Structure formats: structure tokens, C-alpha cells
């Protein structure tokens, strides 16, 4: 019974935040760009989400005749499934976790590497030049940044002595990991941006050159799934940053742990949106060069130093 409640709670929170972000992002962007943003539908324009969803559902759901039909239909589903599965191992509170796995971090890395397929296959199945180029860029970018994403977390794993998210949160009772693992945090944040292909790293879908990249041919709710999947990805990465580096559900006891977790998560979601509002998009080769020549040595050095310090003080 409790497990069923946990699953329902996690799904409800994740999906509500992801859907609500459509409105939050547009409002926050307009605040930072000195505009008003959507404020007509309902109080503060809050019902804009519902209006958008209704619009998406009533659009013609077109599968191009030149596409690879089964793969084309499957692709958006893979994205949603892999991201939602990862939420299962994230502790929203001490007992508010679906599956406290002892390979939690590996589970997340595995799911994030499977998530690449949705974009690659979506772009390939569309059978369109722009989509194919988008898919090509996405696979190279995400494969590259997965490497540092995994490596940047190893410092945290070494300090907490476990792959389990709950154990990592418990290990931060003496102090958040952001202080000793600052380099790991920076690398993880950048890799997270690249994994969710958000601006400034939205090179696979850069609308200036590639129309919309891998989802040019998608319409209706299939496009909607890519759209919501992106917001789910932001929520996931923010939740992970909060859990791994900022103490997760830990916090003063006058508020429930879930609240602290959501507060921290929401802060990083806002950071994602602020980055979108303020940074230009780099060129594709700059992105790859930055990854292999700056982030890889940084994360490897971080592992080396963390390991040396841990052995020295043991």
C-alpha cells in the first residue's frame, strides 16, 4: 500500500512539475527579458498549460509517409520512460522513495544512456535531412557528455561509500558535498545541461540552422512528449543535483523533508531557465572540444584528488 502511494506521489510530483514548467519557464524568461509573458488565461496565466495541452491533443497527429513508422512512433516514448524510471531511485524524503536500490547512481546512468536512443531514432526515423543532422549531433554530444557525467559523480560515490541515493543523502548530514566536490558539481551541471540538450547546449535542435532538429517531423502529442520530456529531464537533473551535492531532503526540521527537497530542486530548475535566458549557443566543434579537453581532465583530476585525500585521512 505504502509503495503504491509512493509511486503515485513520485509520478504526480514529477509530472506536475514538468507540466507546470512550461508556464514557469515562459514567465521567468519574460521577467528576465523585461516582458510580461503569458498572463491572460486564468490567474497569472496559470491555465496556459491546460490551454497548451488541449491544443496539442487536438492537433493532427501526422506520421510522415516517408518515415520508418514503428521507430517513429516508439521514439518519444523511450524518452519519457527512461526519465520517469530514473525518478524511481531518487529519494524525495527519508521514506518517500519507490525503490532504494544499491546501484541507484548506475541505474540513473544506464537510463540516461538509453535516453539517447529516443532522439537518435526519432531523428533517423523522420527520414529528413535536418532531423538526421540533429540526431547525429545529439548522439555525439550525449555520448561525450555521458562520460563526464559518470566520472563527475564518482567523487560523491567515494565520499559516501555507496551507489545508493539514500545513503548519499545520509552521508551529507555532516556537511553538503558541494564544498569538497565543487569541481564534480560544476562538471555534473554542465554535463546535465548537455544531456537534457537545453540552451545553451541545444545544438541537436537549434532552430536557426536545423528547423527543429530531431523533432521537425513530429506533431500533436508525439511532439508534446518530446516537449514534456525535456522538462522532465530538467526536473530530473535538478533533483539529482539537489540530492547529490546539496543534501537532498536534509534541512531544518520545522518543515517536512519533502519540502526541502522540492525547494532545492526548484532552485536549480530556475538556474536552468536563467542559463537559457542569458547564454548564447556555442558552435558544435566548440562544444566537443570543451568537453574532451577541459571537462574530461577536470573530472579525472577530481577523482584522483578525492581518492588521495580520502586515503590520506583514513
Amino acid at each position, binding site marked *: 500500500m505504502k509503495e503504491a502511494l509512493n509511486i503515485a506521489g513520485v509520478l504526480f510530483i514529477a509530472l506536475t512539475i514538468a507540466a507546470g514548467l512550461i508556464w514557469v519557464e515562459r514567465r521567468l524568461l519574460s521577467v528576465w527579458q523585461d516582458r510580461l509573458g503569458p498572463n491572460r488565461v486564468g490567474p497569472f496565466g496559470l491555465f496556459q498549460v491546460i490551454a497548451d495541452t488541449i491544443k496539442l491533443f487536438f492537433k493532427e497527429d501526422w506520421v510522415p509517409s516517408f518515415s520508418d513508422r514503428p521507430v517513429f512512433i516508439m521514439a518519444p516514448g523511450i524518452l519519457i520512460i527512461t526519465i520517469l524510471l530514473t525518478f524511481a531511485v531518487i529519494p524525495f524524503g527519508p521514506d518517500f522513495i519507490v525503490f532504494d536500490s544499491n*546501484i541507484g547512481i548506475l541505474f540513473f546512468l*544506464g537510463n540516461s544512456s*538509453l535516453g539517447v536512443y529516443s532522439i537518435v531514432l526519432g531523428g533517423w526515423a523522420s527520414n529528413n535531412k535536418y532531423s538526421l543532422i540533429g540526431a547525429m549531433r545529439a548522439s555525439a554530444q550525449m555520448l561525450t557528455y555521458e562520460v563526464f557525467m559518470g566520472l563527475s559523480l564518482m567523487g560523491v560515490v567515494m565520499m559516501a561509500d555507496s551507489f545508493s541515493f539514500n545513503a548519499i543523502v545520509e552521508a551529507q548530514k555532516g556537511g553538503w558535498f558541494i564544498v569538497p566536490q565543487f569541481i564534480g558539481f560544476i562538471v555534473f551541471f554542465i554535463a546535465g545541461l548537455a544531456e537534457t540538450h537545453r540552451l545553451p547546449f541545444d545544438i541537436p535542435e537549434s532552430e536557426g540552422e536545423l528547423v527543429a532538429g530531431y523533432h521537425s517531423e513530429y506533431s500533436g502529442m508525439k511532439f508534446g512528449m518530446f516537449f514534456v520530456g525535456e522538462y522532465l529531464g530538467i526536473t530530473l537533473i535538478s533533483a539529482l543535483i539537489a540530492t547529490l551535492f546539496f543534501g537532498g531532503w536534509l534541512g531544518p526540521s520545522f518543515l517536512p523533508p519533502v519540502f526541502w527537497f522540492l525547494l532545492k530542486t526548484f532552485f536549480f530548475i530556475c538556474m536552468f531557465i536563467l542559463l537559457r535566458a542569458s547564454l548564447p549557443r556555442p558552435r558544435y566543434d566548440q562544444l566537443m572540444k570543451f568537453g574532451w579537453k577541459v571537462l574530461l581532465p577536470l573530472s579525472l583530476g577530481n577523482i584522483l584528488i578525492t581518492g588521495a585525500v580520502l586515503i590520506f585521512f583514513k
Partner: protein
Amino acid sequence: MNIFFYIAATVAIISTIMAISGRNAIHALLFLILSFLAISVVFYLLDAPFIAALEVIIYAGAIMVLFIFVTMMLNVGLERKMENKWLNPRMWIVPGLLAAILLFDLILALKVSRTIPVGNQVIQPKQVGISLFSTYLLAVEMTAILLMTGVIGAYHLGSQKKKVMHRFLEKKIKTC
């Protein structure tokens, strides 16, 4: 627990057959990924969660993405007639016979020898790491050197000087 094992094993076998008999290269690769995922489930059920996770991260997640990447660029799928000509059914006879002998051997071996029961204890990631860096250290180091050759090769291929000239201009200069 047994029923889950048989389900996963069946999925693995069927998807592998689909992978080797499929005509569409990308679809065949997708079935291969499915079979890796099924094998990962089998590993998990055999109480080796760490290996299960690595199976997904490395095989299904990293290596197969590269395969799909390359196949995507080749735009294959139109050369089916060629494949039919190259792969005539007679070619399957000898490998089929040999595989049948192996299968027979395996069934006999399973019947005669006693199998070691698995599932006594869950093997934690830590145990795997410790044995990798103590008992099997030499093998790990040798694998690392093997991978290093790949890196050096890639560096050698990629380090050629960048051409700043456009290819049309180059022709012009040659003819002049």
C-alpha cells in the same frame, strides 16, 4: 523468481534471432539492444546487480549507440538483393551442424555434471571493485593498455593538418 528468469531468457533468445534474421539494419540493431536489456535482467536475477547495470550502461547505452550512429550514416537497406545472392541457404549447413553438436554437448554436460547453485548472496558493487583491483589487477591493466592503442590510433588519424582551402580552389591551383 524463476518465472522472471524464463521470461527474460525467452525475450533475449527471440530478440537475438530477430537481430540476426532481420533485413532492416536499424531494426536488427534495436532487437540487439533489446536482447542486451533482457540479458541485463537475467544478470540482475542472478544476484549480480552491478554487472546488470554495466551491461545497460556500456553495451546497450554506449557501444550500440555508436553502431546505430554509423549505420544511420550509411543509409543501408537498399542492398537486400546483394545479400540474398551472397547468403545462399547452403552456407548454413555446416555451421548449423556444428552448432547442433555444441547444443547436444551442452545438454549432455548439464545432465551429467552438477551445477553450482547461484543466488546464495547478492554480489555488491564494492566486492566487484575490490576483486577487479586485487585479484584481476593484471587483466584490468592489460585491458587499459589495449584501449590505449585505440586512443593513440584515433589521435593519429585525427591529427592530420586541417585544410584551410576549399576543395574547388585546390583544383584550380593544381591546374594552373
